[in-house]
């Protein structure tokens, strides 16, 4: 029988499994994105593919993990114990190509019979999946340039590895040893989930587990409805813009209409730009992730994360638009950059409904830096990819944090000393960017400055936003300062790079990335505003 007590016990048991998967993945993987920066997500699903539990790893995968499992269920009508499905195809359950998802059907033994009770899935951002630029975050115009595309395929079949698939995969990436290690870590994470679920069934019985999964989904939906019901009914509109797609130089509108009716909430992106040539497009699951993230922020901090959490939320993403692109659109940046702008737009609309809750815009970018080449110390190829924190938007009555990842990301930085062991580059400065936060009654957080000196030739790609259009302030607060990317050539030439750039760096060149500050909140008292001008 389900009661308020057993509900809590199952909730914590299931969440603990998803979290343990993450611990295994993080501590035994190779890609800096996974091991140092926790750019991954782990989740459990029931046999119908409904989300049962997801650990709090990275918000950008919130709404998109269920799509992976759904596509696996479409692609295969039969699963066996020991199967593992791999995919990264954004148009078949993925998000962008570096995110490889591994899905394991979970069988438990009940009365000497193997029963499929659900799925364990984890998704991790690999440092390289091939394509036209090291780090697989290129300035692309079609998805084929962005790397190897993996539709849902069995990487393991009934306990046997699919060596042909693995060989093909590893032959198409720049750092195959790392990829093999990361995939092994992902497999281990799913196996951990399988073991723990078996233990759970042994302890409580399958019937009790299934009963509680239903109850947990209802419980999460109740919590979500209570959250939405507290938002004043109405229709709220807001448009924010991406700087450009890196190809045409035109700004790209993200328009959103948020409708709150009782305990239901609809986010409609109709009016947003059609899909673009550059890779700031997103697939629909990323639009859902951004929406779910915003709703999740309005809920209590430790609210459960499952299928019910977003039952009262509807997302409308017009096909062929920049938020629901069709193949062969390039999408690498949609995940990291556009997702941030979707959040800005939704919060912008909700600020009208909840002026004392919603913060001003945060840095609105992840400041992606990718570099690759040959390390002269080892003669081995290297592929570096990192994202940078910035200023958080000011909150009502509370300054924004400085130098942190905001909204859809929360990945760690690479320690300078670890960075210099691993890559033929040096960090020559890493500091808070003074005065970049927007002025207001509450100040926006300051951005960061990171200066990198190249010690070897490298191909470099920058994917950054908020270089032309600053993060907005709210309720009279000023916007944060735009980010800036500077290249200091060894011969003295200095260039202000565009937000999206691809170039070859030579030894002695220096790259300076200054990330945006957060927007201010509320009208600043007069002297502070004067000081600023």
């Amino acid at each position, binding site marked *: 029988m389900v009661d308020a007590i057993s509900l809590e016990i199952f909730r914590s048991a299931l969440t603990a499994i998803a979290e343990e998967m993450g611990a295994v993945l993080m501590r035994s993987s190779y890609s800096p994105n996974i091991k140092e920066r926790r750019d991954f997500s782990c989740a459990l699903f029931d046999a119908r593919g409904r989300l049962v539990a997801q650990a709090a790893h990275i918000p950008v995968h919130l709404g998109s993990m269920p799509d992976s499992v759904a596509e696996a269920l479409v692609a295969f009508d039969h699963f066996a114990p020991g199967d593992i499905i791999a995919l990264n195809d954004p148009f078949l359950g993925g998000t962008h190509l570096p995110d490889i998802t591994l899905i394991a059907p979970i069988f438990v033994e009940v009365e000497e019979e193997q029963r499929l009770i659900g799925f364990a899935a984890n998704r991790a951002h690999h440092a390289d999946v091939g394509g036209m630029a090291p780090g697989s975050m290129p300035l692309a115009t079609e998805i084929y340039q962005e790397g190897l595309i993996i539709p849902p395929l069995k990487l393991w079949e009934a306990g046997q590895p699919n060596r042909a698939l693995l060989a093909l995969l590893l032959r198409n990436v720049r750092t195959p040893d790392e990829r093999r290690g990361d995939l092994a870590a992902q*497999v281990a994470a799913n196996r951990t989930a399988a073991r723990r679920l078996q233990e759970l069934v042994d302890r409580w019985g399958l019937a009790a587990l299934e009963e509680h999964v239903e109850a947990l989904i209802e419980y999460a939906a109740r919590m979500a409805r209570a959250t939405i019901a507290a938002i004043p009914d109405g229709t709220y509109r807001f448009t924010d813009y991406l700087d450009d797609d890196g190809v045409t130089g035109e700004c790209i509108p993200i328009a959103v209409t948020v409708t709150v009716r009782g305990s239901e909430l609809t986010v409609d992106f109709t009016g947003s730009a059609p899909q673009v040539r550059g890779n700031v497009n997103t697939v629909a699951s990323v639009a859902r992730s951004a929406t779910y993230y915003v709703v999740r922020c309005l809920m209590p901090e430790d609210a459960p994360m499952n299928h019910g959490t977003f039952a009262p939320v509807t997302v409308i993403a017009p096909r062929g638009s920049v938020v629901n692109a069709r193949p062969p659109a390039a999408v690498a940046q949609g995940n990291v950059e556009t997702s941030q702008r979707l959040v800005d737009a939704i919060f912008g609309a909700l600020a009208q409904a909840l002026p004392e809750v*919603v*913060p001003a815009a945060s840095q609105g970018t992840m400041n992606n830096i990718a570099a690759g080449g040959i390390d002269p110390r080892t003669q081995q190829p290297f592929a570096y990819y990192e994202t940078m*924190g910035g200023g958080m938007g000011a909150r009502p009555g509370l300054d924004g944090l400085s130098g942190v990842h905001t909204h859809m990301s929360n*990945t760690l*930085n690479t320690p300078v*000393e670890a960075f*210099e062991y691993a890559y033929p580059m040096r960090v020559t*400065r890493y500091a808070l960017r003074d005065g970049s936060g927007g002025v207001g009654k509450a100040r926006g957080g300051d951005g960061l400055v990171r200066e990198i000196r190249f010690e070897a030739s490298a191909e470099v790609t920058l994917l950054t936003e908020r270089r032309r259009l600053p993060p907005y302030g709210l309720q009279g607060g000023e916007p944060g300062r735009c980010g800036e990317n500077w290249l200091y050539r060894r011969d003295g030439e200095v260039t202000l790079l565009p937000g999206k750039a691809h170039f070859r760096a030579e030894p002695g060149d220096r790259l300076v990335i200054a990330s945006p500050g957060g927007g201010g909140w509320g009208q600043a008292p007069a002297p502070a505003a004067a000081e600023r001008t």
Partner: protein
Amino acid sequence: MTAILAGVDTGGTFTDLVLFQEGKLRVHKVFSTPHDPSQAILEGLQELGALPRLRTLVHGSTVATNAVLEGKGARTGLITTAGFRDVLEIGRQTRPSLYNLRVQKVPPLVPRARRVEVIERLNERGEVLIPLDEGSLEEALATLAREEVEAVAVVLLFSFANPAHEQRVAEAARRRGWYVSASAEVLPEFREYERTSTLVLNAYVGPLIDRYLGQLEQALPAGTGLRIMQSNGGSISSAMARREAARTLLSGPAAGVVGARFVARASGIERLIALDIGGTSTDVSLVDGAITETTDGRIGGHPTKLPMIDIHTVGAGGGSLAWFDLGGALRVGPRSAGAVPGPAAYGRGGTEATVTDAHVVLGRLLPEAFLGGSRRLDMALARQAVGRIAERLGTSLEEAALGIVRIANANMEAAIRLISVERGLDPRHFTLVAFGGAGPLHACELAAALSIPRVLIPAAPGVLSALGMLVADVLKDYVRTLMVPIDQEQAQATIEAALAALEEQGRADLLAEGFAPEQIQIERYLDLRYVGQSYELTIPFGGDCARAAQQFHLAHERRFGYSDPNEPVQVVNVRLKARGLVEPPVLERQPLQPEAVVHPLERRQVIFAGEAGPVAHEVAIYAREALVPGARFTGPAIVTQYDTTTVVPPGWRARVDAVGNLLIELASDGPTDAQQLQQQRRQPAQAAQAQLAEEGSHVW
């Protein structure tokens, strides 16, 4: 008259003293004197008549910990490589919580105005890229002087590879009369943020500890040895603690684990899980022969990389509050009623139900026996508080109370799983050693949930930390980052050379502490990882690189479920422990009295969970003092003593062994139906797991 050895644990409310003299342990508790903690120590020693013959005092205090938690440390400055003074504030660029729009970061212990830079730069091999600029050094020191700092941390990039610049800076700073702490001296290990945070902690608490221990040294009779407990479970001389004060943060909980291990060993138990449940939190730690350590500690949100006993803490304790969340689920903790107002039953104005109130309602805590009868628990207030929960649940009072305990247990159980199952260790091979005010209340139910077959309640569970201090070895930790492939030709020589240097330092330090060469024991370790990984596993090093690599593959397999012997392995750090062996007190063994008949004080109604809901049992209540070695009884039973209560549920039986430990085991002749069912179900699962583990060993 033999000399006396004393362990003294100064806590917020009580100062616990444990004396060892002529094979006997004596225990005493006095009220702490927070304005001058040494007052309580002297008073306690006086009351025990111990002062004249006191040979060594081993002390643990919360002085450093509280300074950090309350932000009352020394006015501290930080000197870094030019371009990096903000590293301390930026940290790892993450926000502490993902979905909290009002998330806050712990402010750095050194604000920006007191963070200064010197122009210099080394590379990862320790080669000088930019020589140290003396002008910038003078300017930096002048700024700190203007800021009137009392302590200074010096952390330059890659100083572990070449400490020359850092030494020069530290020397110049010391001439100004400040308490100076340089990273290559305290923690020559890579990853600049964590190193900086550790060094700043050290500087921040250093002057306070320095003063405090100086005073204490003065107050003790001349000739008394004073040793200080560290977070790594060993002690160091007062002189050394005054230099490396950060090593004493979190020493109290560490001493508890050492104490638990000591009493378990006296009963012949080597594998144990220490369970310390207090008012607001539960600390758990695993001892598998050796104590488990970590270098990923945190205090008040600030990371420290100094080795410490790996203690996992969850916010569930006697004072944890029961509440309903927005979705209507019943939750317990992490918010706590604290000391004031405390649980409703304390009668100090608390009205919300806590775990303690649930125990009172269930009859497990006897209202008149609380703290040796010095205080009474109010049953009516407890029933009122739990009653409000029951009303909302639509259940009986007893069901609600059982529910609160079950949820608290689930949180505690998760903590134990994290340090055992999740690290590849099966709790069924361990004994649960329970202490702290509430540990013995929950121990058996937790053991049942985790299939732990045996529970041990020490004779004096309330002073285990003080006992741990008394028995701790002197222990110094050393580390050095190397970053070499283990199969490289020169690896062996490089490792040996680095370890030899650490060993020389370790032996010198312990000789200076007064140990004879034969009392010094050296342990050597390597921090290893696959090339390209970011987390290391610490592997004992016997001198053979190939063997260490092999052990690493096995450890990786156990911890993460896979390994790959073909992957290259990298030596990140060498580590060394220099142990000064302290002759441990031997607990007196008393003859067992097999005929001992124990008479319960009385019998009462106590509620336990049955198949169909709460069941009231007629339960024997025993006084711990009356349980002589050899005494045996079966559950359900309650054992009361001064500062704790032990619950022995139905189906368990207890006995007191020769050293006075209470051992409680699942009665093997009559497991309950549920246990049998669980047992039957588990077997096929184990086979499946074994198979999975096998598959996992070579993934590709």
